[in-house]
């Protein structure tokens, strides 16, 4: 089923939910102010559902808005978003009965920056990007170029375990299989791992020197749901508010640890970063470490206790 059909179905479903009073609001995506972008749409007005869109640019993980929302919400969720929702349910941050999950199977999100690099063109010069099957057709200056989907997806989509939501009330469209390319999705991490500690230190120094501590990563992250973040505490002051790169690094280091066992590798933090710091390099490293050490992947199953709370009395000492 093409995106446009899913979009039509979604609009109908969303309208129905609001008309029947099954939800208080719909949380979805609408077209952004720039080409190839979308922006979250939160609405209680049934006519607004006509603005809902489904396309390869629905990058936001809307579950980040759920914490603190009262009443019933109809939420549009891709596979990774549904995992975040499950993770929030495990932490008892949202109740399942307050959600109507409108699942959309997602073949992967398109990273426009990758398209720009491959075609050597700016975003403004691109006229259209459409995805069909495992091909992406880009139109620029009236000329069509076909690209393989795996070349233009976000890195985290290449490592996707769950393109089709498993927790949903309505599934719009047919289940998708992942465009798996784990090697490509980990390329940056392996490069870093091969470096000496000194080189890694220099690498992160370069990256975190650009951080302005805008906290967009934290605000975009569905797993970052603390009412008061540790960076804002003043007694004790864990992180100084001065613009030193080590403090920026410490902020991100601790943030990454705080979301261990909750992070589903949705890549929202990295996309939110205005300084283009490769934050997913850290979160994916942590995600893989959690998988390797504790055989745990967040959001796959709503039943177990959260990772850092659960324990086995029979555990070994090291």
């Amino acid at each position: 089923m093409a995106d446009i059909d899913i979009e039509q179905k979604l609009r109908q479903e969303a309208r129905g939910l609001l008309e029947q009073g099954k939800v208080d609001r719909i949380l979805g995506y609408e077209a952004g102010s720039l080409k190839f972008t979308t922006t979250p749409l939160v609405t209680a007005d049934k006519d607004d559902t006509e603005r809902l869109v489904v396309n390869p640019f629905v990058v936001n993980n809307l579950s980040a808005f759920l914490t603190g929302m009262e009443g019933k919400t109809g939420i549009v969720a891709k596979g990774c978003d549904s995992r975040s929702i499950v993770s929030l349910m495990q932490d008892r941050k949202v109740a399942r009965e307050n959600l109507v999950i409108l699942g959309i199977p997602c073949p992967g999100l398109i990273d426009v920056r990758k398209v720009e690099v491959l075609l050597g063109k700016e975003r403004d010069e691109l006229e259209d990007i459409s995805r069909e099957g495992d091909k992406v057709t880009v139109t620029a200056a009236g000329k069509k170029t076909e690209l393989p989907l795996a070349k233009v997806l976000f890195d985290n989509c290449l490592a996707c375990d769950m393109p089709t939501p498993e927790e949903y009330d309505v599934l719009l469209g047919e289940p998708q299989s992942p465009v798996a390319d784990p090697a490509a999705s980990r390329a940056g991490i392996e490069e870093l791992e091969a470096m000496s500690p000194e080189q890694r230190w220099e690498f992160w120094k370069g990256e975190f020197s650009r951080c302005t501590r805008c906290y967009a990563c934290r605000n975009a992250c569905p797993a970052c749901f603390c009412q008061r973040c540790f960076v804002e505490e003043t007694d004790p002051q864990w992180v100084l508010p001065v613009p030193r790169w080590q403090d920026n690094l410490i902020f991100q280091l601790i943030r990454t640890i705080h979301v261990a066992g909750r992070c589903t590798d949705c890549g929202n933090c990295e996309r939110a970063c205005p300084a283009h710091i490769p934050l997913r390099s850290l979160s994916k490293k942590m995600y893989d470490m959690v998988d390797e050490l504790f055989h745990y992947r967040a959001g796959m199953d709503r039943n177990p206790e959260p990772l850092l709370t659960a324990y086995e009395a029979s555990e070994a000492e090291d």
Partner: protein
Amino acid sequence: MATAEFEPKILAFCCNWCSYAGADLAGVSRMQYPPNVRIIRVMCSGRVSPELVVKALRSGADGVVVLGCHIGDCHYISGNHRTKKRMAILRGLLSYMGVDPRRVRLEWVSASEGDRFAQVVTEVTREIKELGPNRLFTDQGQEKR
């Protein structure tokens, strides 16, 4: 002035029920161990959040040791299980950032293991001396806060 040997500052978080008593036993038994370690008593090793460890490194500690009851002996049943998971992730990420993970250690010392406490501290001090001063602190041009 002759350059003195590097004397690291090492912070030890000892849990009240086991490791702190272990350290006490080492003391009353007059066991010798390097004076580089500064002990902070906490009620449980589970209280030691990654923030505390990193804050210590940022504030000038060259190494941090977290000491708790042996697994299965925690006064609060599961505190040390949680520390174990957290510290594993912290060490992995520190290493990924280029900080030597040997600067952050997790050890289990019971109340009767005074000798083990002395041995852990001796070992850690030797290791940190080899590693030299810690970057998270020194990279800023030795500013004192």
